[in-house]
Structure formats: structure tokens, C-alpha cells
């Protein structure tokens, strides 16, 4: 609460905040209510251009694109959120322990981390998907596994930076237990760095999920997905460019909003 006094609003924060807020509201509302049903098809309204009735137009089955975007946004954001929460939690735990204690466990974890990092992240998620099969749960599981190493790395390097700081030595001399030092003394100091990396992770998860769904190996119908919509829409670029643009621009706004928000927070905490 105290922090608000220091938090001067900057352009990044405002722009990012507005974009993110709009996206979150659309996603939440979309889970309960959409202007039109997302499944009702209508041959008569096939490829209707954006209008007051259908603000993003309709698709090849005459379905309202805006309603489907809302649903897809919900799926995408849920996947992103679950992935960063799961991977972030593991990252904090493993990163804190390995970074603080070091030793051979750290060594082994880092080797595993390096091996995983050797794969480009999308390739690794493809491996996990091909092993586990497709579908929403498996996408979440795959991306969580893929994202753990980057969180471990960030948390670990923060713990290494902080573990030799005098305030940690000071706590040791007071006789504070190791676990308390780890999670009560050090943890609050990494939260600003960590929250920014959560945002970056969230964006990467969204990009990866929509990429996989675009490739047809991610979220499967009937679950709505922005990536899948875009790949469907690609065939109709001549006749209905708004179809592809609606799905694509939504992803861009979502990602841009979060990254501006992250940039805004970073600038605030640096000043």
C-alpha cells in the first residue's frame, strides 16, 4: 500500500493498464456471456463484414467472430495464467533452494536446466505434446515444463546475488533459521524482478499456446482458441481479411498490453 506513493503513473503504465484491463474484462465476460452463440451457424450471414451487429464480422459458417474472440481470449489467458503460476511456483522453490545452498544439487539442476534450455522452447513443447498428445491440459502441462527452467534461472541468480548480502549474514548471526531467511528475508526482495519475469513468461506462454494451436497441435475444438481461429481464417484472406485480423490483432493487443505494463512497472521501480 505504501508503494503507491512512489508509483508515479507513466505512459507505459497507463497504456498497458488500459489494454490489459480491456482484455481481462472481455475474457471474463466471455466465459459467462457472449453477444451471440459461438456455435450457431448461419449460412445467410456467412462472411458478413464488420458492422454494428457483428463488430468483427462473421466467419465462413456465419458465426459471430467477436463472440468467438471473447471465448478464445478466455482460453488463451487461462492457459497463460496457469502456466506462469505453476512454472513460477516451481521456479521459486527450486531457484531459491539451489541458488541459496549451491553445492552439487545446484550443479545437477543447472545441468538439467542447460539441457532443457538447449531446446528452443517451442520445440520442447512440441516434444511434450507429441509424447502426451494434444489438448488443453497437455498444452498447459507442456508449457509449464518448458517455462520452469527460465524461472529457476531468474530466481536462482537473484538468490545468488542476495545470499552474500550483509543483511542475509546479519540474519544468520541473529540465529534466524535457513527457511525463514529464504522465504521471509530474501523472497520479498526478488518480487519486483520476479513479477516482471512472470509477465514476460505470461506473454511467452500466450505466444506459444496460440502458435501451437495455429499449428493444429495445441488446444483442440471444441475449446476456442485464437491461434486456431487464425489458421482457419488464413484460407479466406482474399474474401474475409477481417477474420484473420480480428484474431491476430487480439493476440497482439493482449501481448503488447502486458509488456507495456511490465515496462511501466520496471520504470517505476527504477526511479
Amino acid at each position, binding site marked *: 500500500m*505504501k508503494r503507491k506513493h512512489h508509483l508515479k503513473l507513466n505512459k507505459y503504465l497507463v497504456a498497458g493498464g488500459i489494454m490489459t484491463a480491456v482484455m481481462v474484462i472481455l475474457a471474463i465476460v466471455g466465459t459467462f456471456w457472449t453477444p451471440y452463440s459461438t456455435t450457431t451457424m448461419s449460412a445467410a450471414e456467412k462472411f458478413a463484414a464488420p458492422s454494428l451487429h457483428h463488430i468483427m464480422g462473421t466467419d465462413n459458417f456465419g458465426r459471430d467472430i467477436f463472440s468467438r474472440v471473447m471465448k478464445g481470449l478466455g482460453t488463451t489467458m487461462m492457459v497463460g495464467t496457469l502456466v506462469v503460476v505453476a512454472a513460477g511456483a516451481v521456479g521459486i522453490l527450486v531457484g531459491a533452494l539451489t541458488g541459496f545452498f*549451491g553445492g552439487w544439487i*545446484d*550443479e545437477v539442476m543447472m*545441468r538439467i536446466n542447460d539441457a532443457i534450455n538447449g531446446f528452443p522452447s517451442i520445440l520442447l513443447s512440441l516434444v511434450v505434446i507429441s509424447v502426451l498428445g494434444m489438448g488443453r491440459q497437455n498444452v498447459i502441462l507442456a508449457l509449464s515444463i518448458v517455462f520452469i527452467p527460465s524461472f529457476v534461472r531468474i530466481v536462482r541468480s537473484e538468490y545468488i546475488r542476495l545470499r552474500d*548480502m*550483509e*543483511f542475509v*549474514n*546479519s*540474519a*544468520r*548471526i*541473529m*540465529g*534466524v*533459521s535457513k527457511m525463514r531467511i529464504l522465504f521471509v*528475508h530474501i523472497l*520479498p*526482495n526478488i*518480487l519486483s524482478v520476479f513479477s516482471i519475469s512472470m509477465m514476460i513468461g505470461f506473454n511467452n506462454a500466450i505466444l506459444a499456446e496460440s502458435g501451437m494451436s495455429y499449428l493444429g497441435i495445441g488446444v483442440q475444438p471444441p475449446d476456442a482458441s485464437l491461434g486456431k481461429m487464425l489458421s482457419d481464417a488464413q484460407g479466406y484472406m482474399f474474401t474475409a481479411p477481417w477474420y484473420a485480423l480480428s484474431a491476430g490483432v487480439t493476440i497482439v493487443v493482449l501481448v503488447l498490453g502486458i509488456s507495456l505494463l511490465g515496462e511501466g512497472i520496471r520504470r517505476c521501480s527504477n526511479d
Partner: protein
Amino acid sequence: MIKIEDLSVSFQGRTAVEHVSFSIEPGEIIGIVGESGSGKSVTALTLMGLLAEQASVDSGRVTFDDTVLLEAGRSIDKRLLQKFQGSRMSMVFQEPMTSLNPTMKVGKQVEEVLQLHTELKGEEARKKVLSIFDEVGLKNSDMVYESYPHQLSGGMRQRVMIAMALILEPELIIADEPTTALDVTIQAQIIALLKEINKRHHNAMLFITHDLNLAKTLASKIMVMHHGQIVETGTPEEIFTNPQDDYTKMLISAVPQRKKRTCNNAAQRNQKSSAAKGLKSFEEDEDNRKSIAEQIIENLQNVEKEHQEQCVQNGSREILRVSDLDVFYKEGNNSLFGGKKKKQVVNGADFSIYEGEVLGLVGESGCGKTSLSRAILGLNQNYSGQIQHFTERPQMIFQDPYSSLNPAKTIGWLLEEPLRVQKVGKDDRKQAAMEMLAKIGLDETYYRRKPSELSGGQRQRISIGQALITRPHFVIADEPVSALDVTIQAQIMDLMMNLKEEMGLSYLFISHDINIVYQISDRIMVMKDGTIIEMGETEELFSNPREEYTKILLA
């Protein structure tokens, strides 16, 4: 030669230098003395034409001979400044590590000055660089030429900086705290070099420092700066014997002085000096250092035994006993392939601390004094020998108040944490914290503040409070004032001494500055290369140092 008239500089509305006027004549060394934020560095940078872009010159001007380099209200003529920079005036900076380009050979960096201002090229330029390296006392100038900064020691890097400043024999050399980042022995060499250069080339020098004593040894004229203004100007004698300004007086009184103290046991002192006689050779004889060290240790053990008997007679309780302590430090990059090396950092330490006593430990950076304290505190388990605590574990006051207080917590939380560990109830904790705030001279509003809102001195008070809140008997203070300004230093030293009397504390007081240690200690140990080479009652050690090294420290 150089005139600064009515100069005022501000940074985004905040005034850094206010109506400063002075002139520099050929051959003279002017010392500007002031604490951090006094505007001394900004004055120098303005004179050099190196002000940051956010800075604005609000009034006054700088003239070099007849050329106006800088004038308020006129846009800065960078071309003109560039002609003077490096050729007619040059600058030596504080941090020799970071002030050189890390990816460029130092020879090339010095040669760049020639490229910028002269027609010298190739072999000729190289020869000139090598000869200036010789002049500033860099041996193996060929090798130095081909080195990168990280391959040189701090002292060598500073010599390179001086060579760079000197190569075109400028009329003015500005040195901004050129020795602050260096060890005491290296400091003395660099100061001697600057003096010699001044004598030989008869150039003017502007020497900027926070250290009044240093200015006294070097400068022919001293200017004291405070809050952006020059508060007093005079010769060193005038300033020291008859200071006019209140701030100058305070500054002089804050400088650790060697006041005469009452000696209580002359007989004991005599015994001690005889016990360790004839061991001046530690410094001179590199090859036999190990055996000499052993001899020293053995002798000091006798000294220690005598002191112990004395204290037992006086009824003082022993609080800590360190016997035959070797401390090691693990080296290596912690990888599967890199083998771990054990490096010995403390060699045969052997001493005790008694109730109510302050034991000072003096040594340069890297001598092992911090490793010794970490072993005593239990932070480094990698030692052989014995550490016996006769009371509860010691508490600690750290050097850097900016890293010793957890930035994410409030002052109240920090003060209460040691009690929380001891499972003291909430109300008692808060009461103890409030009492401690009063004791360390801060009011109750600080309870809710965060460390980032406090000044360095205030933080150090909190650090002291945190160490003392559990009412320990024994506190280790590792360079507790060396990160602070001189006037603040004096206040913190006073606080530490008062609390010692009030709470009956014993200190192990560690510092690189023998004068600070002198102020507070009953006994002093001198440490070099991991070995305690000399130990004795404070007065005795000061008036009759046995080791060469101690004498250098005292000089």
C-alpha cells in the same frame, strides 16, 4: 592562469555549486576538501568541461589564460573544450578499475591522447607512451603497454591514469580522490608520485579529497567546501591551527586525533614489548615468512598469556578465546570440472577478549581480518583451531549500511527480528524496539520507515540497534564507519562508545584505518597477509611500534 568566477551549477533545479570563485596559478597544488555532496567533484568536472547533460551552469565563467572555456548563458563550445581536454588540462579519477576502457589495451588508451592532439604516429607515439610509463614508475613498460586494465593491479592502473593525464604535460592536472580506492601503502606511493610530478613539471594541480590530512600533506593551499560553497581558504597551517569557519572546525575535530590517553599499567607494557622483540623482519624477508610468522605467533601467545593473567587478577571475565586459528576459504568456480582449492586466509590467530574491553584489529583489504571475524561469528565453518565463546554468540555491526539492512522491511521489523527469533512476545518486542530507537538517537516515527528513506548515518544507527537489541555482551564491528562521511563517522564512534559504557559491551573493532581504531580500542592487533604480526596496548603500540609494517600504517 585559470580563473573561476562566480560559478554556480545545478542539476534539474537542485543547486550543486553556488557562487564559487578561485584561481589557480602555475605550480601550485590546491586541495579542495569536502564531504560527499559538497560540490567538490562538480566543481572539478565543470572546470574540465565534463558536466553531464542534465547539469546547467547558472552563473559565472571559467577562463583558461585568456580563453573563456565556459560561461553561463552561452552554449557549450565542445570543439573548444576538446582542444584543451587532455592537452592543456587533464584529469585523474577515483576508480582506476572502471575509469579505463576494459576492452582496450592500456597503451592504446594512453596513445589516444597523442592521436587526438599531436601528429605523432606509430613507433614514435609508442615510444613516447613507453617513456611516460617509465616516468610514472611502471616497470616493464612494454608489457604494461600490451596489457588490458584487468591484468594490472589497482596501483598500476592508477599510474596508467596518471601517465595518461601527464603525457602532454598539461598546465593543469585535476585529481579527484585519486587514492581513495587504494590500499594505504599504495596510497602513499601515488601521493609521492603526484608530488614529484608537480616538482618536476611545475604544473598546477587541483587535488580533490574528503581527507583533510591528505590535503595537508600535499597541498599548498586548501579550500574547504560545504553545501556547494567554499567556506574557507588558506594554507594548511592556517586551516589547521586557526580555522575560522564553524564547519571547518567541526571537520578538523572529527578527524581522528591521537589524543593522549591515561595509561594504567606501565609495568605490563614493558613486559610485552620485551616478549616480542627482534621480529622486524616479517616485512623484509619474503622467503622465510612462514617460519617468521610462526615465531611471531609463538611470541604473541606469551604476550596474550600475560594479558590474561592480568585480567584475571583484575576480575575481568574472558568472553572469547581464539586459539591457534587457521581459516580457509574455498576457491574455484564450483563446477564439476574445476577442482576446489583451499586457500588459507588466516594463519595461527591467537587471542582473547575480556569483559568490557575493546580490541582493535587493523589491516589492509585482503589481509584476512574479515575472514577472521566471519569465522568467529560462525559464518565460515572452514577453520582449524579453537574458537570458544564464554557468553552467547556475538552480534555484528556491518560496514555498508546500504546492504546490511533488508530493503524490503521496515525499521521496526528489522529491530524486532532478533527478538522474534528468540520468541519474545509482540508487545515486548515493540517496546524494546522503541527503547532502542531512543537509545540510538532516532525518534519513534522511524519505526514505520524503510531503510531506503534513511541516510547512511541513520542506517548505521539502525544496524547498531539491531545488533544490540538482544543485549549481547560481545559485538564485532567490521569497518562500521568507513562508508560514512567524516562528521557522521565521529557521531557514530561517539554512539558506539557511549553504548559500550552504558551496556557494558566488549567490541572487536575492525578497520583499515589505524587512527579510527586508536580512538576506541584498549588493545590493538595488526594483521598482515593473514597473520597477526603485532599486538599490544594502544598507547604502547602507537609510541613504540615494533614492525616496519605498523610504522607504515602509522605514518
